[in-house]
């Protein structure tokens, strides 16, 4: 027999850790239909039964206000897993149980995994588990996911529940609401049961109808008599409790929880001292020290990532792929007597193309490693807390800060990270602005031009581009907020999790979670793109192999669009072609420049390429070119991410149009302004 278990829990309850512990390496990641919220699935290992485990997004409640909440709710209601495993952070039990009170209404057996028991014990608190089970009416299994404790029992218990539920023995249900509300609900229940049996569990439906949940109303379409009954009942209750219905319901859930807690949880008498977390926080969010400390942290992360370690790994891998591997393959192909075009495709196209992105994998991984540290330690949410005020000025909230910072690593995961934003306008705006954060792939372009034209001030020039990107993002935010995105920004209500020392395992999991997208991109998009670029550079329109790139398809197209760039200072066909290939992957700009200058495959450190660039670029033109590279439409992988997240062609095209337009205008100002100032 096969089973389906769904993991549900608040953010930070240890769900990822639990999922990895239970499923091991059997997991695979897809997307929820229609949206890009990741859907993780795996098989429970060490069990002979066929148990599929589905990881639902981390949520605080089942209110239909954010995409993640709606997904989780719909999944449970529509796919009907055999068991919902609700992971509850024992150290934060009061708020975590709120979701539990909603889950037990859904008509699916619930098993609570009371996680972080180790942390609870070391705090000296105690939870009376049999009592808690009785009060909640569901099994409760203590676990410590990070130590793999209790996970086996958890799955065993869930299996047992699933098997007995299959034969129709559901656990006793409990009541959360007070007498009066319960009476009203029961009244409605008799009306609703025949109507919603198929779609929703009746108890859930009554509460939602009473609350006025639009999604449920739209789906059930209660007849007018029933709707009238709901409205009068709601009116009566709202008057009696002197509050709106949603508030009354939430209130009662928390009152129920307070009752549960007062009986089952024994807190060690607090001595009133500050915990370690409090002490750390006192410094990190100190009125005066906070911002300088934040800047210092960012500085350290970036110098390490893009500084010596990053450069070292890049050079190393570059050599490995473009010299060692390329040579070996060339020799092999020659000895096998392969055709010239095949050699050119494999070595000049595919290996070079993949190489141009693979060299960045370690660096991107290092960056994600640091971002994982910031996130797992709890610092990232403090950064959002500190930056909210600033981001509000451009019409966003502190929550947009995290995607924006990730954008400095790679736009793709950054765009995906906007999913945590509840308000659609905010999400769209953040997606439009995030690519202005200069991603890691643009760095080699700067590195090349800065070395060739600003040898004495390379870091300064590169740094200025990062700042320029941020300034453009800020100005764009203000502009768009005043025009297309009028109206209130998203509220900022956010949990600040306790500071934790990240575990290596946790860091690896998170780093891999975010970084694998980048590697996948290398394997798929870039692979295809390398072939296309190679083709465009090797053949002409009549599909003859060309000697000179200028005669190729790309050469012709480049020459055609070059005048478009002339006012920006780089109206030669080579720059145009390089920028075109940059749409495939920004890293490709350097490689293309090398090929177009008849130097073959070279890296951004190539002295020959610099010399050749110096013949037709001036420092001002170079800066304008870098500015354009910084701002114009992101690579194809980011484009795909934008399309998925925006879920609209109109917005996607607007986004890339806006970015390219902005790039043109800003580069124009740089170049023409510079000329006026006599810098040309």
């Amino acid at each position: 027999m096969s089973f389906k278990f769904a993991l549900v829990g608040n953010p930070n309850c240890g769900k990822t850790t639990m999922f990895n512990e239970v499923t091991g390496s059997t997991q695979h990641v897809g997307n929820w239909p229609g949206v890009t919220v990741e859907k993780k699935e795996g098989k429970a290992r060490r069990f002979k039964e066929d148990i599929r485990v589905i990881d639902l997004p981390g949520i605080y409640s089942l209110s239909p206000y954010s995409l993640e909440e709606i997904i989780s709710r719909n999944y449970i209601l529509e796919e009907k897993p055999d068991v919902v495993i609700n992971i509850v952070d024992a150290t934060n039990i009061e708020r975590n149980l709120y979701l539990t009170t909603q889950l037990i209404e859904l008509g699916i057996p619930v098993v609570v995994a009371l996680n972080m028991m180790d942390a609870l014990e070391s705090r000296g608190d105690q939870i009376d588990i049999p009592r808690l089970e009785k009060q909640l009416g569901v099994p409760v299994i203590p676990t410590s996911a990070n130590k793999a404790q209790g996970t086996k029992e958890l799955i065993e218990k869930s299996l047992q529940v699933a098997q007995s539920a299959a034969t129709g023995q559901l656990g006793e249900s409990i009541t959360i609401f007070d007498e009066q509300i319960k009476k009203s609900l029961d009244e409605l229940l008799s009306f609703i049961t025949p109507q919603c049996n198929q779609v929703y569990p009746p108890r859930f439906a009554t509460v939602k109808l009473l609350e006025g949940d639009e999604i449920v109303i739209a789906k059930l379409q209660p007849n007018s008599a029933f709707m009238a009954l709901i409205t009068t009942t709601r009116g009566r209750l709202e008057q009696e409790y002197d509050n709106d219905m949603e508030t009354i319901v939430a209130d009662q859930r928390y009152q129920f929880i307070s009752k549960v807690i007062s009986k089952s949880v024994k807190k060690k008498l607090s001595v009133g001292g500050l915990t370690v977390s409090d002490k750390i926080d006192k410094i990190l969010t100190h009125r005066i020290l906070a911002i300088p400390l934040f800047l210092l942290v960012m500085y350290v992360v970036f110098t390490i990532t893009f500084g010596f370690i990053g450069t070292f790994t890049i050079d190393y891998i570059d050599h490995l792929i473009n010299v060692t591997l390329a040579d070996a393959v060339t020799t092999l192909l020659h000895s096998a007597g392969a055709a010239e075009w095949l050699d050119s495709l494999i070595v000049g196209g595919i290996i070079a193309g993949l190489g141009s992105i693979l060299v960045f994998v370690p660096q991107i991984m290092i960056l994600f490693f640091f971002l994982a540290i910031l996130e797992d330690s709890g610092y990232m949410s403090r950064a959002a807390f500190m930056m909210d005020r600033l981001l509000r000025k451009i019409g966003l909230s502190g929550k947009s800060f995290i995607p924006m910072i990730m954008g400095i690593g790679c736009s793709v995961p950054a765009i995906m990270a906007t999913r945590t934003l509840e308000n659609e306008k905010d999400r769209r705006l953040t997606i439009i602005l995030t690519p202005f954060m200069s991603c890691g792939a643009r760095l080699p372009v700067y590195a090349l031009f800065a070395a060739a034209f600003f040898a004495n001030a390379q870091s300064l020039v590169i740094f200025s581009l990062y700042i320029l990107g941020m300034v453009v993002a800020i100005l764009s935010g203000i502009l768009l907020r005043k025009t297309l995105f009028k109206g209130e920004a998203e509220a900022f209500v956010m949990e600040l999790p306790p500071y934790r020392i990240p575990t290596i395992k946790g860091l690896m999991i998170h780093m891999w979670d975010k970084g694998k997208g980048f590697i996948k991109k290398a394997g798929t998009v870039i692979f295809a793109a390398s072939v296309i670029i190679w083709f465009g550079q090797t053949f002409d329109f009549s599909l003859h192999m060309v000697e000179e790139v200028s005669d190729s398809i790309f050469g012709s197209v480049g020459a055609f669009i070059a005048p478009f760039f002339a006012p920006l200072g780089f109206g030669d066909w080579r720059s145009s072609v390089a920028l075109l290939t940059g749409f495939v992957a920004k890293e490709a700009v350097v490689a293309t420049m090398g090929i177009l200058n008849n130097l073959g495959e070279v890296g951004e450190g190539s002295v020959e390429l610099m010399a050749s660039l110096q013949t037709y670029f001036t420092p001002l033109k170079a800066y304008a070119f870098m500015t354009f590279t910084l701002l114009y439409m992101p690579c194809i992988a980011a484009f795909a991410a934008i399309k998925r997240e925006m879920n609209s062609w109109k917005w996607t095209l607007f986004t890339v149009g806006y970015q390219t337009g902005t790039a043109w205008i800003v580069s124009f100002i740089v170049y023409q302004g510079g000329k006026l100032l006599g810098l040309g």
Partner: protein
Amino acid sequence: METTLNECRPGDKVVIVRVSGEGPVKRRLMDMGVTRGAEILVRKVAPMGDPIEVNIRGYELTFRKADAGNIIIQKLES
């Protein structure tokens, strides 16, 4: 004495009397446990003056002063 949460200073201990306002922000606050009867310890104000951080139901929560203005509270001690 009843007042609103945005009038409080770090270190204040208060209990929620009611939450006014409406819409998603209110709902979100309620979901996070900002409901009648809950005790709040005001922790601090962000370095730039907004938002604020409070301890509620045993965890740390942050929201903006504007929304704190909708939370009517009674001071317990200061």
